[in-house]
């Protein structure tokens, strides 16, 4: 059982769950207290000692079911073929005499039936190299290898030899025939059991050996190139990253140099010591949080970038004084309310599909800036960071950069994030050269990695 445990730990590690040797030790010790009688208790023992993150629980459950199915292989309760056939004593003696005729496993089968085999599967599987299986197509190969481990190929021939020897010794043909029958049945069942075992163990190992899609690649994949499946799988990563940013930000706050000596606070704090300054107080430097206003282009070309930007902004809401967000194509609509009422992912979806603007139009930055200037200028003030996410491609409409200039004068700073490669910014209908004149910072933001770096800086 300890071997099973170690193999299982190996599989868990392979699927990304980190387990220390100390925890494996805990698990082994725990086995003595909990016993192996109940599958659910065994499962709980393994989970409590090996899996320490809520996110890993689902994975653990799945792999546990895949791997420990063999706890449920029913014990062969049929009598051994010999007992069935008749005078067991005689045939056993004969077997002993004819030692060279049958290989050890066949002997096991004849004398004891199938009961001894299941516990030998893991060992056979490991000698056959089952742990290294990489593709489902290899399963058949491994079945063959395991059969060879038991020496099944040679059994037919050996059985013939055995039966002739029995006949030669005078055992009656009827007994030999029923012995043969019983053995053939069991051999068939053994083949089935080998196949089942191989298939199910292979599944567990395949999981572990699967070349895992390194999230690093996804982080650097351009927004435009992401498939919807990839987007979904990245959403969890975005949550985790947001959490990390938040933790780092709070660490930074705490580590920042303490402020100046605060006389009033010191005196107050030391009144109980009779005025002796045993505890010195410093003026805490309170970091002022930024106010963010984000305008996100949601035409199809910039869709994904906007999606992740909104997601990040709202996951990190508490790092900012206030986040107000808008989406636009050729009209502007505020989506802040969705994030107040809905959970992040849902809100992002609503903003991208259902915000009350027409999504099928051509992007028109000029009109959008004008609209913002006319309707929403009160949203911004000297403390606001104004962020625009868009490719700056204006479809040859009026650029409207004078509106952007007016907006800039009311803000602390204007930052433009462009999901397009910088090299393309001068071609076609891109108005970046005009808009960048009115921005404090213009950044290329083509993939999640760059976006994260930007958001990280925002929280500084």
């Amino acid at each position, binding site marked *: 059982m300890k071997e099973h445990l170690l193999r299982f730990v190996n599989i868990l590690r392979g699927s990304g769950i980190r387990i220390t040797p100390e925890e494996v030790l805990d698990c082994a010790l725990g086995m003595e207290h909990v016993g192996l009688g109940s599958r659910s208790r065994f499962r709980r023992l393994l989970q409590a000692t090996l899996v320490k993150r809520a996110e890993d629980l689902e994975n653990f459950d799945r792999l546990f079911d895949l791997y420990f199915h063999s706890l449920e292989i029913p014990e062969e309760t049929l009598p051994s073929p010999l007992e069935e056939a008749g005078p067991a004593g005689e045939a056993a003696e004969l077997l002993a005499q004819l030692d060279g005729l049958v290989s050890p496993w066949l002997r096991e089968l004849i004398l004891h039936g199938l009961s001894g085999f299941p516990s030998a599967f893991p060992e056979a599987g490991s000698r056959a190299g089952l742990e290294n299986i990489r593709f489902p197509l290899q399963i058949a190969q491994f079945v063959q290898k395991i059969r060879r481990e038991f020496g099944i190929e040679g059994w037919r021939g050996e059985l013939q030899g055995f039966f002739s020897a029995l006949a030669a010794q005078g055992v009656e043909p009827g007994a030999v025939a029923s012995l043969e029958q019983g053995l053939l049945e069991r051999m068939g069942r053994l083949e089935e059991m080998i196949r089942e075992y191989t298939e199910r163990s292979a599944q567990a190992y395949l999981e572990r050996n699967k070349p895992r899609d390194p999230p690093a690649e996804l982080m650097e994949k351009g927004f435009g190139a992401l498939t919807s499946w990839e987007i979904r799988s990245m959403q969890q990563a975005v949550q985790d990253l947001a959490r990390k940013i938040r933790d780092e930000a709070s660490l930074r706050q705490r580590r920042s140099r303490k402020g100046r000596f605060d006389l009033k606070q010191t005196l107050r704090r030391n009144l109980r*010591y009779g005025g002796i300054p045993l505890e010195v107080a410093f003026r805490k430097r309170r970091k002022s949080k930024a106010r963010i206003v984000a305008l996100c282009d949601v035409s199809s070309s910039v869709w994904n970038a906007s999606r992740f930007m909104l997601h990040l902004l709202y996951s990190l809401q508490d790092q900012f004084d206030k986040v107000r967000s808008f989406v636009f194509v050729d009209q502007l609509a505020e989506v802040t309310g969705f994030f107040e009422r809905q959970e992040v992912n849902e809100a992002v979806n609503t903003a991208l599909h259902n915000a009350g603007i027409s999504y099928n139009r051509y992007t028109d930055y000029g009109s959008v800036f004008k609209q913002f200037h006319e309707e929403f200028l009160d949203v911004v003030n000297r403390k606001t960071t104004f962020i625009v996410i868009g490719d700056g491609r204006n479809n040859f409409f009026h650029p409207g950069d004078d509106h952007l200039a007016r907006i800039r004068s009311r803000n602390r700073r204007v930052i433009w994030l462009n999901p397009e490669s910088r090299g393309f910014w001068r071609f076609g209908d891109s108005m970046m050269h005009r808009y960048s004149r009115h921005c404090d910072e213009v950044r290329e933001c083509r993939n999640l990695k760059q976006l994260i770096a930007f958001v990280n800086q925002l929280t500084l």
Partner: protein
Amino acid sequence: MFMSLQDVSERFDSQGYICSEDTATVVYLALRLGRPLLVEGPAGVGKTDLAKVLAASQGLPLIRMQCYEGLDETKALYEWEYAKQLLYTQILKDKISESLRSCESLSEAVERIATEESAFFSERFIVPRPLLRAIRSEVPTVLLIDEVDKADPEFEALLLEVLSDFQISVPEIGTLTARHIPQVILTSNNSRELSDGLKRRCLYLYLDYPGPEEETRILKKKVPDLDERLLRQVAEAVRSIRRMELKKPPSIGESIDWARTLVLLNANRLTLDTVRAGLPVLVKNPADREKVLKDLAGLLASAQRET
């Protein structure tokens, strides 16, 4: 000390705490292996109560340490009682000058005081905070470290040290070791990822909302006046509400409160009205309330269907 798994379940039950076999298994294991137990899960599922019941069912005192941002050594381990030391110094002024009378020089006087240092730096002048209290307790205790995710990562390092050796070194006195190793329970609302070291040290239990059967049993225990069928409907309804992706899903305490309001309303069936009346108890957020109201009929239907 519990004799067996059944013992855990039974004694918890007698204290009014219903838990799954899984939970009882992990608690038993933690006690047997001498490991702290980290309990994570959504708010209101009974994490803190688990510690209380653990203490009560064994007749042990519960020492509780509530974590918060900025919690540090002085509030968690110990603090010197300066005021008391100063007071004693004042009171014993005469005695002190008497014992120093024979000293010729200043340095000799200082030496003499240094030898008596232990008079003023002893356990008498230490204000023990929860961690030290748990360690120095004359009887075995249950130590509850509540909401450890609210404390800073630096604090976790301190905690890890204490939980590994169960001893605290006070520079002036020496090392204070535990008289009895406390049974430690840590709870977390999962608002941030805890440090690896701490997690490795503990056994892990994820306490989720109970299933309908378990919740019905809990409700039966806490609100015995209600008909079982109605309780079951309540449990089903609350389960459906939890599935609705609310900002703040109803906790177990809230479903108990709802059952109690049904008693007050003398209701014997779940109707649209009784559900609506119970909403303020269950859902404390206007956005969530709107969401539930929208699907009230469907909610009711599925609750009635299941029973």
